[in-house]
């Protein structure tokens, strides 16, 4: 490897993807046209993000599937993007994990080259560009749909961004879930969400959402008590990215399972399908418009 020096008129600046292209490493892999390729590729499933009083909670199950088979039981889907943000992935696992690696490197690269951090909005836009570059593969059934959330240090609040396969990204007011079990997870959060949740309530709600998603969706893994594999939960606040300790997640799942069992015994029959939380029902999910590019955050 030679020292990557560029003429001032051809300098790639702080853009890592552009640097990769110039140094000859392909940032986006090319895949030949084919049919039904998607079924033989690993897919990662449900991830959720929700806002609470001090920031955001992000959580994801651990299952990866290949068609109808379970390909992996302990896959990780929630990652730190940098100190103040987290990214979670759903979709074709190989590309998604690579996209996260590229995104993480891009954020750190920018920070080091420029000497300042990108704004949260800038980070969300960067990820959108990566998703957009992936569009040709998404059309072949290998979509990657990330979820991005972070603590906006300028605003002092947590913010959540969702993506579609075209790289369209939308800021969510309160919560969002994506992946095959996303719909069930979203409904659970919708029923339990209120403004100003504490950290503990936020983590609990995310755990309930994943539990309900795993209950309804074959692609989503629930708590694996036998192997001791539990969904991963992370919290981003003014203190930065923190992973919720596995013991805490395990204890919360155990408590949830115990509650479910107790409900079943008191009713004396199968549990009725309603969600576990009895929180006030807020309105439908509120979606913000597309993020305007140049707006300072």
């Amino acid at each position: 490897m030679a020292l990557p020096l560029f003429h001032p008129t051809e300098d790639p600046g702080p853009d890592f993807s552009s640097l990769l292209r110039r140094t000859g490493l392909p940032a986006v892999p090319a895949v030949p046209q084919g049919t039904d390729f998607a079924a033989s590729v690993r897919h990662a499933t449900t991830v959720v993000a929700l806002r609470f009083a001090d920031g955001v909670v992000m959580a994801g199950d651990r299952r990866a599937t290949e068609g109808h088979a379970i390909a992996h039981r302990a896959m990780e889907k929630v990652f730190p993007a940098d100190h103040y943000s987290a990214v979670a992935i759903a979709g074709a696992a190989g590309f998604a994990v690579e996209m996260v690696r590229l995104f993480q490197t891009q954020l750190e690269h920018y920070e080091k080259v420029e000497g300042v951090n990108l704004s949260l909005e800038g980070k969300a836009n960067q990820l959108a560009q990566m998703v957009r570059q992936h569009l040709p593969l998404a059309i072949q059934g290998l979509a990657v749909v990330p979820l991005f959330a972070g603590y906006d240090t300028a605003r002092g609040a947590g913010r959540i961004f969702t993506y579609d396969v075209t790289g369209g990204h939308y800021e969510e007011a309160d919560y969002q879930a994506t992946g095959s079990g996303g719909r069930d997870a979203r409904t659970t959060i919708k029923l339990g969400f209120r403004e100003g949740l504490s950290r503990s309530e936020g983590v609990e709600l995310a755990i309930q959402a994943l539990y309900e998603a795993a209950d309804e969706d074959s692609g989503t893994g629930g708590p694996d008590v036998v192997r001791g594999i539990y969904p991963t939960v992370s919290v981003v606040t003014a203190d930065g990215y923190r992973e919720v300790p596995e013991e805490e997640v395990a204890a919360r799942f155990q408590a949830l399972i115990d509650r479910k069992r107790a409900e079943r015994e008191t009713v004396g029959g199968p549990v009725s399908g309603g969600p576990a939380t009895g929180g006030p029902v807020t309105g439908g999910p509120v979606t913000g418009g597309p993020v305007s590019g140049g707006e300072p955050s």
Partner: protein
Amino acid sequence: MTMPFYVAPEQVMKDRAEYAQKGIARGRSLIATAYADGVLIVAENPSRSLHKISEIYDRIAFAGVGKYNEYDQLRVAGVRHADTKGFAFSREDVDARSLANLYAQYLGNVFTHEMKPLEVEILVAELGANGRPDQLYHVAYEGTITDEDRFAVLGGEAETISERFAADWQPDRDRAEAIRAAVKALAGPQRTLGPNDLEVAVLSRENGRRAFRRITDGELAQILEGVEPSPAEASSPAKAAESSPRTSGGADDQAAVESGG
């Protein structure tokens, strides 16, 4: 037909060396030294935003003296090299030695083949890991590379500062002591340097994955006055984020991201 003037190669090299040395001597010096928790770099630099010391990678720092635009270009090239290498292979495979060699080759090449040599001296510092010691690579304007394991001084007055610093050298000093010793050696007997004249950063084993951290004015002022800053002020969000425990599932693709994270 006019004949070009003949100039002996010795003379060309001598002139170039003199030119580069003059350029470097105009700037202020810096000291890099090993201390108890890692590597400390102290530079005389009145600017708050045009840095002499920077982060290259997890355990690698860069420092330059001389012409700012020239060493900053090399710094960015270093970041690019390290990030590309870490992305293509793994984070563990990025090392200071190969980067220092690349710098040496480039500087040597410019010195012999270009009209104007680069008026810079460069330091690549690496925090030791897995039993490897901390390493300081000093690359001179003509591409000479030396490795030090105690300390390195770069800049115009390197020799005098080096003598002063070596006189009261001790291994395994704590951070505050090492900073005070370095500042004293940089200042010399005639002057005193305050926090506004200095740029200080460390590569510390206490900082988690990204070992590089700048020591800010307030913290530095306290250290120079002999008051140890409280641990709360010293902690950074970067540290908390990076050292958070990761649950291990033993997955291959997950390990790839962890080491890439």
